[in-house]
């Protein structure tokens, strides 16, 4: 255990903890932009500077390891003035068009500008990197909002391992770039969107979200991803019952702040026009049952060989009662004639435990067979 004082408060913490972590754990908030708890330390934004007894200059708390007897001051006139000046410099190259910005409400720079009561820069406004890249349907990159905190570069390198982007150029011309500033698709980018997740400003924005609603108008609901078996928790932001974008939240038990491309961007299938919206009966069965007057025969050609098969061509919509009755009747007829083992049930690795439970119970208790499987092996 290491003991130090932060703002006069005696604090005990584990060795190796940074001053910022120790302060946050003790409800002492320190402004910060480039720091992210899941990523390595950068120390570039200079906002989290604190005074340390015995140090001549203020030091960023994000990279400062707690040491026994350290005395830290996180708030004073000088520090506030410096932080204010830093935010002032940040917005000297960052448009303050918060009124139309999608990120407004969750933008960290906006938050600090508000907290320091800065309405406009006292410097000459000049955008250092007026680059706008909308080369893919996942997210756009609007560099004029980029504050070069480098979180995206670090997440891409340290967590995702794709290393698709890095800092390019230097000084005022420094910007985040793919090789040769090419479209993302030509880089090693895997479109996981974790860079959007960690981006504190509107520099990275999901395409699906653009112009679709203000942050405070959105409903937020969490569920578990329906794709692979990792079981990531995803938070969906909705407006008027429609998903606007997906992200994860630090409290997600398995995935923390990170997701993959399918989880983050692959939710739009749910509203695809091909979704089944009513029970459908094959036309030949419907004819047999007198539900349609046209006779029809199942084509010999495999459905796989048809380029864009339409279910309406082979099936007609019916109501639920008819459908469920028919299913029950057909299954019972078979059981009566050929016994329960003439029936096979395929449960689903994509349905819930409750659904699979009911399904297997139906087969075992209702029908009386163990011909019951799902694609665990496939």
């Amino acid at each position: 255990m290491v003991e130090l004082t932060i703002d006069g408060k005696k604090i005990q913490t584990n060795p190796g903890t940074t001053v910022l972590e120790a302060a946050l754990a003790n409800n002492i908030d320190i402004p910060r932009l480039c720091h992210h708890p899941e990523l390595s330390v950068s120390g570039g934004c200079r906002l989290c500077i604190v005074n340390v007894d015995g140090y001549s200059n203020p030091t960023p708390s994000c990279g400062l390891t707690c040491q026994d007897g350290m005395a830290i001051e996180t708030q004073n006139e000088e520090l506030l003035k410096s932080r204010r000046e830093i935010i002032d410099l940040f917005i000297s190259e960052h448009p303050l068009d918060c009124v139309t910005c999608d990120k407004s409400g969750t933008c960290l720079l906006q938050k600090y500008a508000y907290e320091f009561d800065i309405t406009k820069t006292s410097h000459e406004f000049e955008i250092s990197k007026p680059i706008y890249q909308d080369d893919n349907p996942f997210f756009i990159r609007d560099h004029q909002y980029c504050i070069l905190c480098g979180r995206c570069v670090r997440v891409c390198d340290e967590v995702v391992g794709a290393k698709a982007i890095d800092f390019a150029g230097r000084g005022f011309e420094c910007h985040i770039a793919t090789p040769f500033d090419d479209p993302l698709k030509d880089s090693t980018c895997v479109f996981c969107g974790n860079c959007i997740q960690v981006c504190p400003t509107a520099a990275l924005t999901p395409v699906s979200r653009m112009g679709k609603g203000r942050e405070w108008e959105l409903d937020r609901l969490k569920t578990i991803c329906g794709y692979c078996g990792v079981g990531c928790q995803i938070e969906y932001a909705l407006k008027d019952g429609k998903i606007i974008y997906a992200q994860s939240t630090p409290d997600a038990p398995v995935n923390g702040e990170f997701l993959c491309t399918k989880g983050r961007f692959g939710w739009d299938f749910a509203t695809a026009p091909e979704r089944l919206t009513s029970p459908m009966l094959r036309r030949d069965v419907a004819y047999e049952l007198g539900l349609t007057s046209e006779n029809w025969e199942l084509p010999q050609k495999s459905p796989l060989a048809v380029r864009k098969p339409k279910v309406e061509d082979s099936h007609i919509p019916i109501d639920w009662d008819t459908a469920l009755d028919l299913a029950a009747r057909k299954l019972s007829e078979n059981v009566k004639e050929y016994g329960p083992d003439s029936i096979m049930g395929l449960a689903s690795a994509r349905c819930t435990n409750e659904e699979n439970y009911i399904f297997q119970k139906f087969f075992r208790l209702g029908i009386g067979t163990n011909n019951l499987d799902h694609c665990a092996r496939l």
Partner: protein
Amino acid sequence: MTNSIAEIRDTDCIFITGSNTAEAHPVISYEVIRAVNEGAHLIIVDPRKIPLIEHATLFLQVKPGTDIYVFLAIMHTIIRDGLADEAFITERTEGFEEFKATLEEYTPERASLMSGVSVEQIEEAARIYAQGKRKSGPSIYDSRHGHSSILYAMGITQRSNGTDMVMTLANLAMLCGQVGKPSTGVNPLRGQSNVQGACDTGCLVNVYPGYQKVGDETKRKTIAKTWGVDELPGEVGLTIVEAMHAAVDGDVRAVYVMGENPMMSDPNTSHVEKALRNLDFLVVQDIFPSETALLAHLILPAAASLEKDGTFTNTERRVQLIQPIIEAPGDALPDWQITGGIAARYDREMGVERDKEHWIFPSTQEIFQELTTVTPIYAGMKHERLVGEGLQWPCPEPDHSGTPILHKGKFSRGLGKFNPVLANDPAEQPDEEYPLILSTGRVLYHYHTGTMTRRSGPLAWAEPRGYVEIHPEDAAAVDVLDDRAVVINSRRGSVKTRAKITENVPQGTIFLAFHWREAPANMLTQDFALDPVAKIPEYKVCAVRLENPRAKRKKPELVKQA
């Protein structure tokens, strides 16, 4: 998984085999990458140059189907060099001597010959894994004997000897005492959101919920009693591949499919189609008119997971709550309501008198309640307890906090048993007529049979069409050009797709994902040799031949001349 995903980050040595983690389980690969960045060793055994090898310290590129020799040789080396965890073997396991004897013949030299991996690499892998060595930085565990974890997936199991493969990895972990502790274990990465849960709830031919064997009369009787009957079927049923054979033979006559697409996911598609067409009644319950649904007599519209509540169990046995985010379209209903409705009506048809509550539940909460009464590993759970972080089974009591690590201190069966395994070669070997090996699997942007992901705008943009990965030499042999059409033939059928010429696959092997309905990989795969225990088809190895469609007309002449 015997251990939890969060533990991967602290692992000293990660051993991945048969898993393209970065594409099939990206979020787990993040943990692996973070461990490697902290100084962990990463050993990968795979026929393909998967993306994760960029981060690996050792990449053992095996010829398809020969990895078993490498695993056995690794264990041979471990015993030979005295790296085995003797104390663990004595205290916690049985059957070691017998097992040890079988390893005698599997020398690294033999494995090298079979697999094409160098002896040095095999021995190096053995040393690193056994001792849980690190590349750099301190271990949070024992600095002399670090913790090693095995991650694997379908590359190991979708084989005619899949069970052997899994047992081999279990033997390896026990041999080194790398099990029952944090950041160790044998960890299968499961492919679908609730594949673990579907197994847990008993949707398998041989077990009732909670892995209670169908042949275990006591347990079966207990369940029967809970369900209000005297007896339940006690014979092992037919697995899906077996059922398809039975359907062709006319023994299986009706199939009820809930949210599956065997027309794309099952081996030997032509045979599957024949089976499905032969049925008296096929009912498919799904969210999209899948290829299987198009053959069905009746299609029932289901709600997607985004539209309903309930629980999913993930690969680390964590049971988590899901909740509806959006409304289901049209008349679509959650599957539990549809199945319940059919079941209730079925009882009526059969003249069975039963309480309606057997099938018609007011909410998923009540279903879960009942589920826990017959599933001992879930016994202590309730929806309310799952809010937030969920619980990892076994969770037998209402105040039990779940089990992040299995086999801690004691194996579930008591002593861990070493199961001697002999190397078996894949059932279908390449020959003159079909000289190449086809391996199937997944790509990053798509999921399973593609019904969902191929209807997602961004994902379809990123990977719009199917392709087969071919080694440049193999492509040159039949004059196939990059990004041009190629036909793949096997004894079961043929598929036309686009060639992607890459050295990511070894010479002699081609790779085709099974997401593409226009190029269905399972047209080619074989369904005659299943794993004798798990009945898994051998998706990872089948013999194929490439053909250049442009040369089709000329080819016979050339052959004659030759």
